[in-house]
């Protein structure tokens, strides 16, 4: 479609090039910076409009922008452009995963038995019920059912963090949503690594890859994440605490880790999550403990969600696939609500259930994980992982609203609610 629109301009340009020798040939692809800017503005406008007129979380607007302009609908964002923008998406997701990793408060978990019970129940019940649903009701093979469960069992760290920031929420429900999301992410990454081996074992008889690929992913992420954390702390120690210079060091080290992870084909989300965990665990002198990401990370987050929206395979949508995805989401929601209700503890049942609602989002990490696994054996992987991708596609549009609902029902949203970039 975009080609058709540009055709007259191309003709005029080509005729000019013959006479004006300084003109370059008609650009065949959009410049990366221009693409970044377009994605940003389009996402921003739709997100802000929906937030101002319908009070919807801005994330939904960003994803909608991606869906509308992506390959599934208007096609203005081509598949090539998506691949071109992938480094930006990796950087954005990486920074958000770093933040979630830093929020993994194991000390709190060990000091609160009910919380530990709740998170373990959430992890195990979500995995088991989704696996059973995919295996027996959808009819996937055990390997792909396990991959589906690994990809969809956890909440979406990026959505949760941005919704909380946008709502300026504070309180027990908010803190527990973050903790469940962080623990769930850690568990899903472990499951993801194991599933890589299982998929290799099922689809090829190559046991070497089945064993070494998960090891490569885990050890690689650990090493790169560890290197990033060590470097960030080492340099930041020489700078004043909470200074802008420390913020830049943190971002630079995170982007370095993103870059190395991409070079080594190690998942960026896992690498940066581990970097965050290691950063928090080894920062004994509180060197970077109070250094927050700058407001500018919203800029990258907008582009991330536009790209995620554009990556969703709506063009392959069928009613059967849609119903299966809906079933998966219902099973997943039941697992999370049951785990929270059963866990007991000091937080009242109504608030625990709100935590269950708040951890429903499913988004970028799941989509990227699904594509990572699907990419191993593209001929079968893409169709085998339609289920989690559609579940993520649906939850992209409902998840942020559910998280927002949980925060506002718990009464923990900030006065004026002017978070985010507004």
């Amino acid at each position, binding site marked *: 479609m975009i080609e058709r629109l540009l055709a007259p301009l191309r003709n005029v340009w080509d005729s000019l090039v013959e006479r004006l020798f300084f003109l370059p040939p008609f650009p065949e692809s959009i410049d990366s910076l221009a693409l970044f800017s377009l994605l940003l503005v389009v996402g921003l406008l739709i997100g802000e409009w929906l937030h101002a007129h319908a009070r919807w979380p801005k994330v939904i607007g960003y994803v909608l922008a991606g869906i509308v302009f992506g390959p599934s609908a208007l096609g203005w964002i081509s598949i090539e452009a998506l691949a071109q923008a992938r480094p930006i998406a990796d950087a954005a997701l990486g920074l958000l995963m770093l933040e979630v990793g830093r*929020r993994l*408060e194991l000390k*709190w978990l060990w*000091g*609160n038995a009910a919380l530990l019970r709740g998170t373990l129940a959430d992890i195990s019940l979500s995995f088991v019920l989704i696996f059973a649903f995919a295996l027996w009701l959808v009819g996937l093979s055990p390997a792909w059912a396990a991959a589906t469960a690994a990809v969809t069992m956890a909440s979406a760290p990026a959505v949760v963090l941005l919704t909380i920031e946008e709502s*300026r929420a*504070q*309180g*027990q429900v908010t*803190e527990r949503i973050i903790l469940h999301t962080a623990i769930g992410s850690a568990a899903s990454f472990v499951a993801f690594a194991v599933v890589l081996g299982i998929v290799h074992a099922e689809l090829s008889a190559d046991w070497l890859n089945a064993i070494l690929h998960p090891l490569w992913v885990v050890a690689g992420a650990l090493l790169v994440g560890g290197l990033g954390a060590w470097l960030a702390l080492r340099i930041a120690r020489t700078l*004043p*605490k*909470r200074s802008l210079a420390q913020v830049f060091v943190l971002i630079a080290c995170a982007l370095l880790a993103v870059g190395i992870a991409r070079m080594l084909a190690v998942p960026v989300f896992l690498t940066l999550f581990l970097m965050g965990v290691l950063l928090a665990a080894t920062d004994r002198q*509180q060197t970077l*403990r*109070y250094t*927050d990401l700058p407001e500018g990370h919203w800029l990258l987050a907008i582009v991330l969600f536009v790209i995620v929206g554009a990556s969703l395979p709506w063009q392959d949508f069928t009613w059967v696939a849609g119903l299966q995805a809906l079933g998966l989401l219902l099973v997943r929601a039941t697992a999370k609500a049951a785990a929270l209700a059963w866990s007991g503890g*000091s*937080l*009242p049942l109504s*608030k625990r259930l709100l935590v269950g609602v708040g951890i429903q989002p499913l988004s970028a990490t799941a989509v990227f994980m699904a594509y990572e696994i699907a990419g191993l054996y593209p001929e079968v992987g893409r169709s085998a992982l339609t289920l989690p991708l559609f579940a993520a596609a649906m939850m992209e549009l409902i998840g942020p609203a559910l998280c927002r609902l949980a925060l506002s029902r718990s009464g*923990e949203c*900030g*006065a*004026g609610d002017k978070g985010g970039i507004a």
Partner: protein
Amino acid sequence: MSDKGLENFKESAPLSLGVELELQLVSRRDFDLTRGATDLLDSLDYDGRFGEIKLEITESMIEISTQAQLTVDGIAADLAGLRDTLRQHGERNNIGICGGGTHPFHHWPERRICPGERFNGLYQRYGYLAKQFTVFGQHIHVGCTSADEAIWLTQALGVHVPAFIALSASSPFVDGVDSLYQSARLNAVSAFPLSGQCPPLNDWPDFCRHFEFLQACGIAQGIKDLYWDVRPKPEFGTVEIRVCDTPLSIEQAIALAAFAQSLSRWLLRTRPALQTERQAHVARYNKFQACRYGLDAEISDPSGLCRQPLRQTLTPLLEAISEDAGELGCLHWLSPLKNMLAGGTGDAAWLRERFRQHGNLNDVVRETGERLMR
């Protein structure tokens, strides 16, 4: 705002004590104030044996109050019990709890008023002042055997307000900057229309007439509307000293209670002549001096018509009340105050020193929490 009128003065055991401490609820991630009071209270598994744990005006505060006790040792046991209870529940909810008169760097518009008719009424009445009132004080109740005794003691203790301020000062930082005050907290209290000192009154009937006058003018409806530095509290049968910052440690809070009890005994025993009319003219100035300079304040003496260094007048006062402290069995609790006067470090100086050490206020609040809980 209370809609109750003035209650009859309930007599209580002479010099019995009660202590209230307003404490800060902070995030354990960055040590900024957090909203957690309602959740913390809802999750409380506590039988009330050491006193009460209650909500305060905003969600980032909590108030603990001991049982009425005859001795300072009793207060110490209650405060230790309340601290241990809070430590346990704070850890369970991942909420840090610390002392100090102000939070050094919180952003007051982010505060949320606690649910409840009284708190909502205060917010409607005072607007943003209610949120800025997220400051933390120690209130000490001293039991009186009669209403007239309570009014006399209210006036007599009024003279010593600068001493209580200076000894408890723990709020040098506001909005992330050094205010240059030792106790900046009281500046937030001063904004309220009925704050300040109790006017010169002779006895209980005099107080009742004054209160009825305020009621008739529509200014106050209950005793809780009077934010006086020292005020009678008829329903408890006490005089309440309200000017202290919440100290950084339980030990300092106990020392201040011991000081209040011993001083009250000494005052009631020696009955010094009170120049209440003259004192009224210098009270605000003296309070400012104590807030600004702490123990280095120059206190105006309306009888001697001079200014005297507070440190110089406090040392003999502590010596004078030592005999009463001995009789009450709380002499050892006065040691932290004597050490301060002898050149030791007060809470405000400690906070500044830690800030110099760390270069940031997050670490200062982190250490403040550790200090309260140890």
